[in-house]
Structures are given as C-alpha cells and as structure tokens.
C-alpha cells in the first residue's frame, strides 16, 4: 500500500522534477562547467579552453571583485536590517485600527508591484543632480548639496534607501501574517503575570514569530545579494566603484566584457557565499530553538 502511494507520488512529482532539472539543475551544472574554462568569444582564440581552477585562483586576488563583495555586504546589512525593523514596526501599526488604515496599507504596498527597472528609473529621476526633486529640496530647505554622481556616500545611501522603499512592504506583509496567527493566550497570561511590553516582545512575540522573521530574512538576503536592475539604472555602479555590488560586477563581467568563463566562476562563488550566509543564519537563529524542542 505504502509502496503504491510512493510510486504515485513520484509519478505526480515527475513533471516538476523534469522542469527543475532542465531549467534549474542543468543550467547550474553548465555554469560550473564553464567556470573551469577560459572563454571570451572576442578573444584572439574565441573557443572554450579548459584552464582548471585558474578562474577561482584569480578571484582571490581580484581587487575589483573583493571590493564588490565589501560594498555588497555593507548594502545588505544596512538595507535588510532597516527593512526588518521598519517592516516589524509597520506590521505592528497595521495590527491596530486607525482612520485611513486601508488606504495607507494599499499605498504602502504599491512599491512591491513595481518592476525593479522602473524603481531604478524613478529614483534616478528623483535624484539627478540639479533636476531631481530630492537634491532640489535638500538644497532649498537644508542647504545640503546632494550629488550621486560625485559623492560615494550619497550614491550608496540612495541605493540603500531605494531598496528599503521597494522591499519593506514585503517584510511588513509577511510579519502581519505571522502576528495575526499568534494565539492570544500567552500574551494575556504574560500581562496577568505583570510582564512589561519590552519583556513581552523579547520573550514571547519575537520567539513566536522567529520562523517568519528568519524566512523573510533569507528571502531579502538572497534578493539583496543579487541586486542588479535598480542599481544599474540609478548609478551604473558608480561613482567609481561605490555601488558596484556583486550582481552589477557579474553583469559587467559577463555581458559587456563577454568574459563568460571568469564571470561563471564569480557566479558560482557568490552562490556558495549566499548558501553559507543563509546556513550561518539558520544555525545561529533557528537550530538552537529546534534542538530545544527536540
């Protein structure tokens, strides 16, 4: 009986596995294969030439790549942390009733439905020096000169704020779902026992929504690590290399430079680093809790 049920399960799963193999596993294996080759179609020899692990060796000494990793980490830390904090606060706000809540919640969610390339274009219009509304009012009201073409700090912070604006609604929605599903009993019990708001947050709310927080963190972390479109439109990776995040770096290496072999090696390394980062987060945040339960 069990064997027959397993067979049926595998039959039903087969179409999905086949699609996954052809569109997920196979391309990945091809990228790994290419990463062990020197291949630039516009080189003197345009053919693929096997060069063992030379591309991976080169990555370790590639200052441009290391720089892109550094700015990407800074971007991820600033953007994702801010999104989690803001998202949680907004989720708590939306748990209460207030006038115009429905309208505010709709407006707050609108950035989510915008394509990243559009977000980048809109922010470019808003921040272009002397034309954009943001530098205009910063100058008029506060006497602050903002030029994302010359200031590395301004460009970096603008990309961070743009990402926060775009993706905080996703965090809010996820956390609202988590908060709504919490049972009221532990909170009532804690209040009867005299627990303060801060104690309730640290000892009841946060542990109970931790799986949702970690899941959201994983999604945002992976998204932020492969940010390309928005930043490409807004700054092109500049000024200098100030916003040349690793996704932009890979794009430039693979597309305009057509350095397929080396670009593939960087992609594989970045995938590996992303998996490691997620694993570390899982180990530090969820595994102890799961062990305790077990």
């Amino acid at each position: 009986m069990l064997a027959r049920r397993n067979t049926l399960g595998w039959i039903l799963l087969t179409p999905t596995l086949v699609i996954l193999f052809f569109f997920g596993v196979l391309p990945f294996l091809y990228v790994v294969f290419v990463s062990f080759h020197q291949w630039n179609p516009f080189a003197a020899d345009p053919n693929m030439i096997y060069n063992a692990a030379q591309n991976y060796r080169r990555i370790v000494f590639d200052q441009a790549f290391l720089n892109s990793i550094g700015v990407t980490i800074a971007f991820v830390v600033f953007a994702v942390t801010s999104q989690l904090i803001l998202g949680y606060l907004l989720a708590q706000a939306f748990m209460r009733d207030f006038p115009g809540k429905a309208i505010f919640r709709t407006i707050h969610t609108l950035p989510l439905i915008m394509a990243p390339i559009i977000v980048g274009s809109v922010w470019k219009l808003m921040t272009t020096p002397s034309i954009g509304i943001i530098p205009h009012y910063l100058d008029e009201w506060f006497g602050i000169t903002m030029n994302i073409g010359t200031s590395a700090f301004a460009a970096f912070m603008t990309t961070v704020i743009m990402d926060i604006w775009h993706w905080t609604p996703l965090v809010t929605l996820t956390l609202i779902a988590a908060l709504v599903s919490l049972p009221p009993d532990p909170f009532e019990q804690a209040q009867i026992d005299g627990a303060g708001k801060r104690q309730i947050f640290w000892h009841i709310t946060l542990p109970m929504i931790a799986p949702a927080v970690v899941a959201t963190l994983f999604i945002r972390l992976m998204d932020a690590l492969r940010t390309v479109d928005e930043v490409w439109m807004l700054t092109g990776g500049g000024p200098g290399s100030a916003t040349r995040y690793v996704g932009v770096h890979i794009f430039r290496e693979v597309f305009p430079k057509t350095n397929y072999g080396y670009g593939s090696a960087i992609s594989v390394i970045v995938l590996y680093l992303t998996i490691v980062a997620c694993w570390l987060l899982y180990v530090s945040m969820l595994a102890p809790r799961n062990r305790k339960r077990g």
Partner: protein
Amino acid sequence: MSVAFRLGASALAITMSATASFADGQSDEFWAKAAEPYQGVTLQGVTESSPPSMFIREVLAPQFEELTGIRVDVETTSWDQMYDKAIKDMEAGTGIYDMVYIEQDIVYAYLARDFLVDMTGALEANADLKAPNWDEANFTTFADYFRGADDGNLYGVPMEAFIKIYLYRTDLFGDPDIQAAFKEKTGKDLVPATNHADYAEIAQFFTDYGQENDLDLWGTTAQAHTGHPASWYEYYESVAPTFGVYNWGIDADNNYAASVDNGGQMNSDKAKAAMTWWLSMRDIAPPESPASTWTEVGTTFAAGRAAQGLVYGENAGWISSDETKSKVVGNVGVALPPLADGIMDEVEGGTGYIGYYDGGAFGIPSSSKNQEAALLFLQYIGQNEVQPDWAVAAPRVTHTATYDDPKVQAMNEELGGYYDMLKDKGYLFAGAPAYPFHAQVREATAPIFYQMLTGDLGVDEGLDQMAAKAEEELTNLGYRK
C-alpha cells in the same frame, strides 16, 4: 517639429514617391517579382531605439511589406539590450534575427567572428535579387567601415552616420551685451573656440555669467558619468584625439602597446594634458554632468543650460529643430571641436582625426534563416530614393546624393549648417579603431577611469594604471604577445 509628426509626414511623402515610381513600373515590378519566393516570410530585426531606427520600423518596413508582401518586424530596444540580444543570437546560431544593428565600433568584432553575411558576395551569387538601383558607390565613405579588410566587400548597409560636433548657442554668442562683457573680461572677441585655452576661457566666462545673473547657465557640457561608459567614450573619442592621442593610445602595429614604456600613448603627457583639461571643464559644467551620458548631455543643451559643448550629431538634430523637446531651436551653431596646436595639420596630413564619426549599419547575421529576403529589405533601405525623407525625419546622411536634395538643404539651414560640415569636414573625423576587443578593453579600464572622475585617483596615477590594465587585458585576450 516633433519626430512623430516627421515620421507621419515622411510616410506620406514616401507613399507618394513610391506611387510616382509605380508610374515607370520598373522599380516596383522588381520588388514584387524578386519577393515572390518569399511570400509568408516575416523578417525579424533588432536595433537601438533611435530616431533613424524608428523611421525604419514606422515608415520603411510597412512600405516594403506593401511592395513585396514580406513582413518586417523591427524590435527597437536600449543600446545594451540590443547588443545582448544580437550577440547571444549570433553566438548561439539560433537564427532569431534576420537583421541586426551593427554600430561602427563593434563591426570589427563581428567580422572577426564571421557573424555577418557578405552582402557584396551574396548579391553577386544571387543576381536575381540585386535591385536595379542598388549601387555601393551611392554610399558616403562611412560605408568603408563596414567593408571586410581582406575582400573590401560590404557587410552592412549604413543607416545612420553622425559626427560629434561642437555646438554653441548663437543667441548668447551673438548678444551684443554679452560680447562686450566678454571683450572687457578677456580682451577677445566672443567667437567659437578653435583651441582648448579659448574654449576653457569661454566656458569659465559663461559659468560665471550664469552665477552672477542668477541663471541656470553653465559654460560647457560634460558627458562625465561616473559609472557609465559614456564618459570613457567622451574622453577617448572626442577629447584625447584633439590633443593628438588617437586610437585610445593603443598602438596596434606595435604589439598593441598602451603604455609609453612599451610604445603606446595611453599614459603619455598628451593623454594626461587631455584628461586634466577635460576634468577642469567637467568642474564648471552643470551639476548633472557627473551623472550625464550622451542622452543627458543632449537634454542639458536642449534645456538651455550650457552655452557650448561637444554633442553627438544624432542629438544635434532634434536640439536644433524639435520645439517640443528643445528650448534652443533656432539658436544653435555648429563648429569643429577645439584643437591643440598642430593637430589640424597632422590630421590634414593623414595622421589621426579630430573627433568621432559615429553611426551604424544594418547587417544580416550568418545565422539568419531568411538571408535572401533580408537582402531585399536591406537593398530597399539602401536606395537613394528613400534617403531624403529619412534624413529630414532623423538627421543622418549615409548617401552622397542626399546632400543635394532640396529637403535636406532646407534642413541643413535649420541645423545651423550641420550637413555642410558633415559633407565638407567629415573626413577629419573617424570611427572607432579597428579593434575586435572594443568592449573588453573598455570594461577592463573603465573602473580606473571612473576613479579619476571621482578624484580617488590622480590623472598621472590613473592613466598609468589604465595603460597597464589595458596591456594586461590584451595579453589575457591573446592579442598582445
């Protein structure tokens, strides 16, 4: 006049001229007969979304379909997307596209990879497909960029050609009060500059003038984006040559040397003087300049924010004539770029060039499955007869006869003599060097270049690093031994 209006008017004009050609019966008979074997074929093209390409899509393609029954779908997209799509298709040999836009600077890479169909050879082999009015001699010398180095055969039909010129505001340069103020300040007459020192003096004067009079006016444009290749191009195509640094400072005949130590010019004193001058211009240009590509430079000039600047010819057209987009219509003059001492003699003598001859062609990928039908279409857009309306709708000239058309001569007046300059002085300008590694060397050196723009690297150190990086990349690519 808006581009949309021009396209509409051009469609009408070409319909009328096509009707007129029906009268003699020869031309349309050829197209209909030659196209008979290809009924039901749909040609797919990909090109940059620019006015000349829009004219192909909106005007020429429907006309061709009406004459031949062959449908032509032209996909217009962004510059980088166009390359991405075309190169992937040709690299993989999928045959999605029957026509691709070939910008002058990438044609050498395409030819090196045998990506393109030899049009001359194909028409010789298929004489039935050769239109009676097709003659390669109709093209200007710009077509030579699309000929094979070995066989001299044509691999693309030129469809746009511009020079990057020195634009200046005739209303400002001709204002008696401003002229007097300039004379008082500098002791010179206010006329378009012929050398870098004069250009800088005029630029500084107008930037100061804008500040003193609380105007949104600066002395020069600068295509100085700190994260986009447009700035790299402005320096290597338009500024460095005016100081005598040609072909990016790389000596192809000397083992692709870039550094002075090895015989190149990329970090020479001339190159450093050029970069220093250009950065000083950037500093007194409008604040948006560090975020400006070629498009934004055109917009800046059209908004009346700069008194002078180096502007691509494709933008010069609409800046001078399109009232729906430009505030300076009727107030634009054209001149040759400012030059260092001795450069004009050098160029007239056959060495080097003074600026960039920009443009592109439509070619047929070797992977196309409809090469014969595509040959017909490319001949159609390469006819002398369709050129004048195209030149009026989207200022570009690729055929010698176009200059003499009354419509084009009227347009020349509107553009401040731009077509005259293209015709008479075009030989002083040059396209990108014949390198098959164009994007590769640019991308390898650009991050260092951007650091110079942000001030993180000095000019001397930056250009030294760029020369070394260029040689390293050329070695990796196998061109430098």
